[in-house]
């Protein structure tokens, strides 16, 4: 199970990369994609939708399961990753390189973990 040092992590297995103080990319972690299995579809929010801390903004499907994706920040959806929407398997192949949404106008952030803390958290969950 991989973690990337420079990212922040949520308890619900999303990663966050802050581009600046009010903009961030959000994706799901290696742990998440491993547990979900082969991903087949993502239900994306629309650009302009508001997202709130610890609230689902979309969901991600494998053949036999569906999982909510939670926002670790409060803000507005600035962009959705159309490439990932077309090929959800890129998340399986490269979870940290496949951001799902870009959020701007960030006004609040959930409690997030750093890479080390998240790694331990995952080990405990197993």
């Amino acid at each position, binding site marked *: 199970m991989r973690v990337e040092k420079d990212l922040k992590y949520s308890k619900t297995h999303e990663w966050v990369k802050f581009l600046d103080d009010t903009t961030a990319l959000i994706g799901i972690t290696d742990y998440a994609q491993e547990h979900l299995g082969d991903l087949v579809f993502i239900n994306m929010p629309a650009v302009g939708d508001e997202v709130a801390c610890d609230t689902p903004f979309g969901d991600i499907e494998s053949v036999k399961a569906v999982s909510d994706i939670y926002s670790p920040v409060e803000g507005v959806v600035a962009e959705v990753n159309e490439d990932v929407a077309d090929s*959800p398997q890129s998340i399986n192949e490269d979870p940290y390189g496949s951001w799902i949404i870009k959020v701007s106008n960030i006004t609040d952030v959930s409690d997030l973990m750093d890479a080390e803390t998240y790694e331990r958290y995952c080990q405990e969950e197993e």
Partner: protein
Amino acid sequence: MKLIFERSTPGLSCEILPPCDVEAYELKAEQQRGQELRLPEVTEGEISRHYTELESQTFGVNSGYYPLGSCTMKYNPKINEEIAGLPGFADIHPLQPAHTVQGCLEALRLAEKLLCEITGMDYMTFQPAAGAHGEFTGLVLIKKYHESRGDKKRTKIIVPDTAHGTNPASATMAGFTTVSISSGQDGLVDLEALKAAVGEDTAGLMLTNPNTLGLFEKNIVEIAEIVHQAGGLLYYDGANLNPVMGIVRPGDTGFDIVHLNLHKTFSTPHGGGGPGSGPVGCKAFLAKFLPVPRVEEKDGEFYFSGDYENTIGSMKAFYGNFLVVLKALAYILTLGREGIPEAAKSAVLNANYMMKKLEDLYQVAYPGRCMHEFVLTAEPLKKKTGVSALDIAKGLLDNGMHPPTVYFPLIVHEALMVEPTDTESKQSIDEAVKVYRELYEKACTDPEALHQAPVKTAVRRLDEVTAARNPILRYNFD
């Protein structure tokens, strides 16, 4: 197998209709279809061959052992098919005047009477077309009931974590939020968890009894009290009625509303996924909310009436899957007073017998007495050999048997839910046990073989991932 479109030859057709005996009429151009209509162009012989081939790759109850848990794949009697096919039923228009359909109305009334007696209910509607449809109907009854009392706070429906997915989905459709309560260690509703969950916002509790683990909810009377005292109603998901029909009546144990699955408990065939029938029964205090139209009787004459100001409306057009109801009616008349509980007992006997024959090898999720079905967990087997419930299921396919239900209920990992039903013979169960035991041995000695299974079927394991990622949902003519 070829698709019917691939058997098509342009210009071929069946000669079905005589030429039109009146002057032709043409619609104005702007009302006419412009898109080409591409349907198969085949002769009757080709159609016959085609469906014969399709049938050969279909597994019916007549093909072999079919122990799908929670589906009750019992034998479908052929007399029921014939009766449903009688012109006096099959060729009747739903909007014929009442005096020309007294037989249909009497049949519905008789079915209502018999099923109310079996379930302990006072009234029944046959309009819902399937179990899930019945659930939705029942929940809308609950909604209307609370509204009629002026109680707007009842927004939650409680379900146990063993509930079938249709339960919470139906609750959502009826505008409720679902509260899931964890089952106890014994697999039954945890009374303390239930007490904590009920309140002023409880609209009702949906329960299957026996539950999806095949266990009878012994505390059902207490459960009913808790829910009723909190002001909620009790809804019975009748999917598992088979083991207790004629022995325990949901209405006697506190349920206010029930739905039945005629295509499970009452032997009507599954048709490859429908049509079924999900009638909803209720106690008298809820009858005024039932969907319309309803069958009424006056001076020995039956008629339909829509004149009920408190009705929830309609769940679909007309009266329900009438021909399916007829099949269930014929079945109940055939089994009768003694046969109904006998079938229940046979189902429970068969399940306990098979479970006991396997429990030394496979782990039973909740050991002890089961009702009509039992749940095995392949989790220990998977840890030991890497062979999963899915692999066992695929191994069964190579032995000409339909697998049990797998991966349900969700609270059991690597679940295999086995329901032999009442119409399975001891001989057939013994043969099945032999196969299940052989598969277990194989899992221990040659797990890779089971990962590769099935090998003898018309097609082998399918790429479901690509099917979901890049769906091809129709034939492409181009």
